[in-house]
């Protein structure tokens, strides 16, 4: 325990030099900007900075990369709150309550909540990274095909249940998303599914263009189709994060931090699932469930704490197993290798100080968030006052460039346009778009896990229910579904809360 603290203090001291701190602030700012621009994601930001920092000493380069990563996940909430467009997939859950708060004239307060949530989430994740890395890294190995299958189903079911007012439509959207992920070459035999001979489709529908389409382009059209409205900014709105919000919802913060870290450790699922899971758990436990989706402080806090806690969580298996817990963590792993760090089971033996260095880097990133949260918010709130007719065409240009930037494929711009129109039509019929996007994220995992699981067990279904983690996830899915059937809901009542408790503490 004390080893951890001393190691952390040493690492902080090691980095405490002016030029290094400047790098940290620079990295966080680049991350924040990239995260806030629709289409440019944390993965792309970290990859870009890897290229730009090649010549720096390895510890400084990695510091910048981690600051970029943390900053990008935080930055996504800016556009989610101000424009109802998640800057990265991780912020889709923050749109629900964040933008609702902004519409009530409380954009500054919403950004303050996101700032404090992000910092606390990072700290909770850091705590586990510093003290329990060797033990928690092993947890990633507990997830096999059966657990991944249920995790994917769980993600789509909770997200469908939470967004909008109509779970059935949420689930339809989620399953359409899962189907969209099946388009293109599948991963086992490289067999083309639903491509109808179009080569571009063999690569599948990429997530980012689809995300930018259904949220970005569709939102541009959605705003422009109505007569311009003036946004109000309440006089009692404040840009300083409120300590009271944190104290009042400390249970939510800790619960979301734990869930986020845990989801981060699990390979293959990242910040988006972390945000949704925290949000779902917060709503389940909340005394003010009816406020969720209409500007709940608690909901926004949960989503933002969850996705940022996921970042240190995702780094844990990178260090101990060289297995990335999320997509940006994969690039981070590549960068560590370039800079001569060898993550793996021996890292605690060969290079123990490195783990604490990473914790210190996360800490500096959280300081970066704090500074920008305090300094930039007042400026960002002004965006709401700019007429929509000026902002929206620029957003659309960014949507087009952002979809193209990831892989330089013109096809991706086409995908963005098609999904934008699809998104507009489906939204006008009250189908939420977040489950659709999460479905695209999780579809591949669901597909391969189910097939791999069945082939490992030779068609036997018992491992899907017999293994402890798989069984818990299955129960969660079942309960979420039953809660939406009125009769079942009445019967279960209090019992549900009792059953969910072990997972929340997990």
């Amino acid at each position, binding site marked *: 325990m004390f080893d951890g603290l001393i190691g952390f203090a040493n690492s902080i001291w090691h980095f405490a030099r002016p030029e290094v701190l400047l790098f940290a602030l620079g990295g966080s700012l680049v991350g924040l900007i990239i995260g806030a621009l629709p289409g440019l994601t944390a*993965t792309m930001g970290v*990859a870009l900075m*890897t*290229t*730009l920092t*090649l010549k720096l000493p390895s510890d400084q380069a990695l510091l910048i990369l981690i600051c970029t990563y943390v900053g990008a996940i935080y930055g996504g909430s800016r556009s989610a709150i101000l424009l109802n467009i998640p800057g990265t997939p991780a912020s889709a859950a923050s749109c629900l309550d964040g933008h609702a708060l902004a519409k009530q004239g409380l954009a500054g307060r919403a950004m303050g909540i996101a700032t404090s949530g992000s910092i606390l989430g990072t700290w909770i994740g850091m705590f586990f990274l510093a003290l329990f890395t060797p033990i928690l890294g092993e947890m*990633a*190995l*507990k997830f*096999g*095909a059966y657990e991944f299958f249920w995790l994917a189903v769980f993600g789509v079911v909770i997200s469908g249940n939470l967004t909008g007012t109509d779970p059935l439509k949420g689930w339809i959207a989620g399953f359409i998303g899962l189907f969209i992920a099946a388009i*293109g*070459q599948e*991963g*086992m*035999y*490289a067999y083309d599914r639903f491509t109808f001979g179009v*080569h*571009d489709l*063999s*690569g*599948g529908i990429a997530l980012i263009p689809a995300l930018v389409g259904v949220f970005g382009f569709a939102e541009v059209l959605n705003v422009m189709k109505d007569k311009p409205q003036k946004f109000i900014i309440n006089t009692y709105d404040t840009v300083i994060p409120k300590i009271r919000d944190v104290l009042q919802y400390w249970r939510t913060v800790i619960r979301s931090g734990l869930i986020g870290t845990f989801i981060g450790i699990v*390979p*293959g699922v990242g910040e988006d699932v972390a945000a949704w899971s925290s949000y779902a758990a917060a709503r389940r436990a909340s005394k003010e469930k009816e406020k969720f989706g209409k500007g709940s402080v608690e909901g926004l806090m949960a989503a933002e704490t969850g996705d940022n806690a996921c970042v240190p969580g995702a780094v844990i298996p990178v260090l101990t*197993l*060289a*297995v*990335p817990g999320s*997509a940006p963590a*994969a*690039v981070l*792993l*590549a*960068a560590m*290798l*370039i800079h*001569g760090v*060898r*993550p*793996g*089971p*021996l890292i605690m033996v060969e290079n123990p100080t490195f783990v604490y260095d990473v914790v210190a880097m996360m800490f500096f990133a959280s300081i970066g968030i704090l500074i920008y949260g305090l300094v930039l918010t007042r400026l960002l709130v002004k965006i709401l006052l700019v007429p929509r007719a000026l902002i929206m065409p620029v957003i659309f240009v960014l949507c087009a460039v952002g979809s193209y930037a990831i*892989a*330089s*494929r013109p096809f991706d711009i086409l995908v963005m346009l098609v999904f934008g129109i699809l998104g507009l039509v489906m939204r006008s019929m009250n189908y939420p778009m977040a489950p659709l996007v999460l479905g695209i994220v999780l579809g*591949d995992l669901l597909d*391969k896990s189910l097939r*791999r699981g069945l*082939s*490992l067990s030779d068609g036997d279904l018992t491992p899907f229910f017999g293994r402890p983690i798989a069984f818990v996830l299955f129960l969660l899915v079942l309960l979420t579904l039953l809660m939406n059937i009125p009769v079942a809901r009445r019967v279960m009542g209090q019992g549900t809360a009792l059953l969910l408790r072990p997972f929340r503490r997990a």
Partner: protein
Amino acid sequence: MQGKLAIRTAVAAFVAGTLGFVAQPAAAQQWKPTKPITIIVPWAAGGSTDQVTRVTAAELEKELGQKVVVVNQPGASGSIGTKSVLEGSKDGYTWAAGAAKDVGSYAVSGLLNTTANDWDFYLTVANQAVISVNPNTPYKSVADLLAAMKAKPGQVSFATAGVNSSGHYGSEALSRAAGATYKHVSYDGGNPAVIATVSGETEVTSQLGVEQIEMIRGKRLRPLAVLASKPLEVDGVAPIEPITKTLPGFRTEANYFGIFVPKGVPAEVIATLDKIWAEKIKNNAALKKYSAEKGALFGPEYGEAAKKASFPAIQGAAWILQEGGKAKVSPDTLGIPKP
């Protein structure tokens, strides 16, 4: 006014051209990139191609004095990213990366109409597949494993990165050489396949050494053999014995990775890269260190030598596709004879 300007420009160009030519004929071959160069990695970030390409890009940056940006464009077994380089502008600023055997066999699988002749190869390392087992399994040697595969046909599980992967190629070659069958389980990539074996979901993995080496070092995997004719020696690990010790007739070939420049780019790009490979990459410390630590073979080949070195792997991959019934075009018709 305009005419004057045009004349002036023409004169200036002429003078500059002649001066350049007269002053230093050799300088005409020296390529000075004026904007960042993009290397398209047609696989996801963090994988074995991505890692070695990023190391190489960092080294090339020093030589070329210009940013070398790595862009991941995954999909369709690497054919989408490769296609965009092949069909993109031939100004010499966009290159592809990957395994030579993939570029050489896309035409066979029908994924992309290209062969090794459409590219100049600049190879960096050769990777070898290693047969490793979970330490809790009873298999202590290749002989044990083969005996189990024969005793329980189709029951011993092998983790690989899918049917097109080097790992699957290894497991197929092993089972055919031994006349046994196994249960093939495919994963999203080399790393997940290795992790599945570490966690015990599968018993054996036949992925590349680079992807397993940290786990072998950490004693989370027990290596049985490297699919090569020489033992694999890596820092911090006892030498891994070659498969040919147990199966003397086993055909092995080096699986080269590198950078591929499409034919049709300006001649000075090729001349400059040839020069960098001949003079710098040949003794490059960073790539040597990468190879020694990760269990790869350093293989800085270019030009005809690169084509020759990588041909056996292309041949092997093409014919595995043909025999597995996955070929759209027979390798024979593409000038790839049966090994």
